[in-house]
């Protein structure tokens, strides 16, 4: 079965104005979505990435060059990813549509894993 990665893009500032009550409720929505795709056998794994922008590594004149990735607090970041099973793009997209991320101003990039065989 093909696998897809859902890259969750967001502006961190969108999350800063919720009350504790709303925070609990929104986490509950994500958890419910994840439990649902787990139950459907679609969930493979997920992780949050740190916001600090990471490092960009390249070779310049035969030497490794490392620069800090771009990070500005107001900017959009890739918050994290979910790896899921899906029979085709349509199904993967359908799965991502249920993700509460979309409700809270985020957007999702769906990419198919390209396996060797």
């Amino acid at each position, binding site marked *: 079965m093909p696998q897809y990665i859902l890259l969750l893009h*967001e502006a*961190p500032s969108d*999350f*800063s104005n*919720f*009350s*504790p*009550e*709303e*925070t*609990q409720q*929104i*986490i*509950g929505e*994500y*958890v*419910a979505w*994840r*439990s649902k795709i*787990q139950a459907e056998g679609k*969930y*493979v*794994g*997920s*992780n*949050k990435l740190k916001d600090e922008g990471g490092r960009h590594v390249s070779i310049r004149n035969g030497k490794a060059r490392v620069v800090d990735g771009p990070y500005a607090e107001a900017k959009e970041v890739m*918050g*994290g*990813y*979910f*790896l899921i099973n899906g029979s085709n793009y349509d199904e993967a997209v359908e799965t991502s549509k249920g993700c*509460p991320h979309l409700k809270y101003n985020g957007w999702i990039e769906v990419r198919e894993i390209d396996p060797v065989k």
Partner: protein
Amino acid sequence: MGKRPHSPFRTIRMASQSSDQINQSVDHLFRHRAGQMIATLTRIFGIERLDQVEDAVQDAMVRALRLWPYQGAPDNPSAWLIQVAKNRMLDQLRRDCRLTETTDEIEVPDGGEDSAAFANEIRDDQLRMIFTCCHPLVPEDGQIALTLKTVGGFSVSEIARAFLARESSVSKTIVRAKQRLREFEIKLEMPAPDKLPARLESALKVVYLMFNEGYSALEGEELVRTDLCHEAIRLCELLAGHPVTGAPKVHALAALLLFQAARLTARCDAAGELLLLSEQDRSLWDSAMVKRGLYQLRRSACGDEVSDYHLEAEIASCHTLAESFETTDWPRVLDCYEELLKRKPSPVVALNRIVALAKARGVEAGLVELNKLAEDRTLRNYYPYYAALGELLREVGNSSEAIDAYQKALNLTSSEPIRRFLMKRIASL
């Protein structure tokens, strides 16, 4: 977080266990934790850093919101949240260069232990915070808003919705209240024994007003208003449960609030229309809450003091414990109102007394007294007076005057649920 071996993908079993923890967690877990964290961290870092503490707690909430969806909640969500908030505070303090590396030694209770001592510590932190927010030098509206924000974990937007106020004005109220705390150097501490009675009185008044705000207004967002009532009860039970603050009148107020709140669930019919006490389905009343009310009522009788709250609690108990509207102990209700009226004469208490009197001694007697009360100018614009008049006239079969009275009431209120109720009454005559 570092203790657990970290595989790129946590096992699904672990993830789903954590999800259950969040789903099954008590109602308002985050809201209550936010309040507790603010109280505890303010004790540690000082009331002068209240704003920073609130930001740190908010940051911890945001971090949970952005992280937990991917990896599930940690095994002990409360401990995790307070640890994150504490680290934010320490980072900021280091940046401010006011403290050196020794800040690592600042001990923050992590909620990990379930010991009674820890529960007591959390409770005491919250009590100190209540007394600080409800300090008599803070303006009254500020006392309520600040208590809701810092002890209750309510957001400005939630407070605004509960009070039908603008967010900007709630913010200003809170800013002013904090200015007062600074101006008068009000400390985060339990009041000294000689100041306790007055300070307790002030805190009880805030609890009482907070409850009424949620209970009596019939418009606005139902959910957040009910939350206001429950928060008032939580604070009151907190005060009642402490050996120093658990005076008989605190128990009396707790009993009053519990008896009133027990009936919240039955106040409207299926269509959301308002129901009078006589029309409510008593089987819908919250019996667990009534039980808690009875417990508090018993404890309120421990001293020889009879406060206004005692009288109000007794009235509420008569209503809530009666098997039916008809079998309510009206003479006792009437006695309590008469005593209340002697203590704090007000047209509102006077009106309630007459309603009880009409039940205890007959509608005619009630009407005579109501007409006497009409001389009170303050009641001229008070719709409940005309609504009560309409009810009594309707009961004696005087339809035309009843309609007149309902009509006057209708002209005096803009509350939609009440207007619909009055119009239904007029239509039935």
